[in-house]
């Protein structure tokens, strides 16, 4: 009986150590493991200029503007804390629209705007049939 108890304590200690290590690593990776910067993340800090980064957030309401050339799109990404104007030249994904999530790949300019070279549409966790579109939920943020 004693050996069994010893093994149980040892296994529980081992499990605790592994979980602790994992949680420490996860919290240490908080910024590094993030897939994108939200506008609020870069509002206070020095902009990572000249580096390829991703900017993610909601496409602000009535902010999409098409240039005369037909391929350049201007829009604003916001997260409730800050806004970043983005310019993108190319073909946007089908799900790219206002009040919906987007992840833009590109780099910041010194004036605080963002030049995107690629757009990814971010789908949120709400699924509903077409007749309920917008009636059930109003998308306000990236996270529930």
């Amino acid at each position, binding site marked *: 009986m004693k050996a*069994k108890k010893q*093994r*149980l304590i040892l*296994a529980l200690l*081992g*499990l605790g150590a*592994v*979980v602790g*290590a*994992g949680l420490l690593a*996860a*919290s240490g*990776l*908080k910024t590094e*493991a*993030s*897939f*994108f*910067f*939200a506008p609020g*993340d870069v509002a206070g800090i020095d902009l990572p200029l000249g580096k390829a980064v991703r900017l*993610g957030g909601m496409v602000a309401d009535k902010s999409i503007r098409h240039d005369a050339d037909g391929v350049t799109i201007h829009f604003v990404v916001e997260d409730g804390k800050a806004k970043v104007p983005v310019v993108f030249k190319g073909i946007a*994904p*089908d*799900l790219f629209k206002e009040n*919906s999530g987007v*992840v833009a790949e590109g780099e910041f300019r010194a004036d605080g705007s963002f030049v995107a070279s690629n*757009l*990814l*549409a*971010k*789908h*949120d*966790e*709400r*699924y*509903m*049939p*077409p*007749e*309920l*579109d917008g009636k*059930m*939920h109003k998308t306000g943020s*990236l*996270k*529930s």
Partner: protein
Amino acid sequence: MHAYANPARFLKIARPLTPVCVGVGLLLVLLGSYVGLFLTPPDYLQGDTVRIMYIHVPAAWLGMGGWTGIAIASIVQLVWRHPLAGVAGRAIAAPGALFTAICLLTGSIWGRPTWGTWWEWDGRMTSMLVLLFLYFGYMALANASDERTTVSRATAIFGIVGAINIPIINRSVVWWNSLHQGPSITLRGSSISSEILWPLLPTVIGFSLLFGGVVLMRMRANLAEAKVEARMRRMAAS
């Protein structure tokens, strides 16, 4: 629990349970797939792509549930020396890896039209890929030792250590900004509208039963093989 330490007693229950698991599981999967593919409405944004969820979600659940099972079996093996724990761990590994692979594949197929990319190194996707590699590592380790029916102690320890990835997968979309959406179904309810959501219930339960049936089959096959081997050894000795 030790009542089932005797493989004969375990087999007595496992034998009739296997066809029940497989039969009911298959029925539920077929029902859920039919309803999910033909009867439910499309999503307002994703359109028909949403239907991949009826496979993707059960696959993700079983990939992670499989490793949770391996971790529990590993603890039972190391602490209580239960003779069937290692057999169960060995039996879970391959179907667990298969469902993890299905989850990654269907997710990729969904990601192309929805996000506009097949693959991104986002927290959820990366941690799920790590889970697949953990399964490969577990299987390699299990086959590296002389143990054929159960698994070695080192493999069991690996099963426990690898379990740390499970909460990381689960929390990855909450802790870190990620491309993958946050959890739709939480303790507080579901943000998937009910007429789209409900076929998920039969497919999740159905695939889980199929998984259980396959694990039982693999455990029985392993035990039978050990029996044959023991008998051959006895015949060779006499």
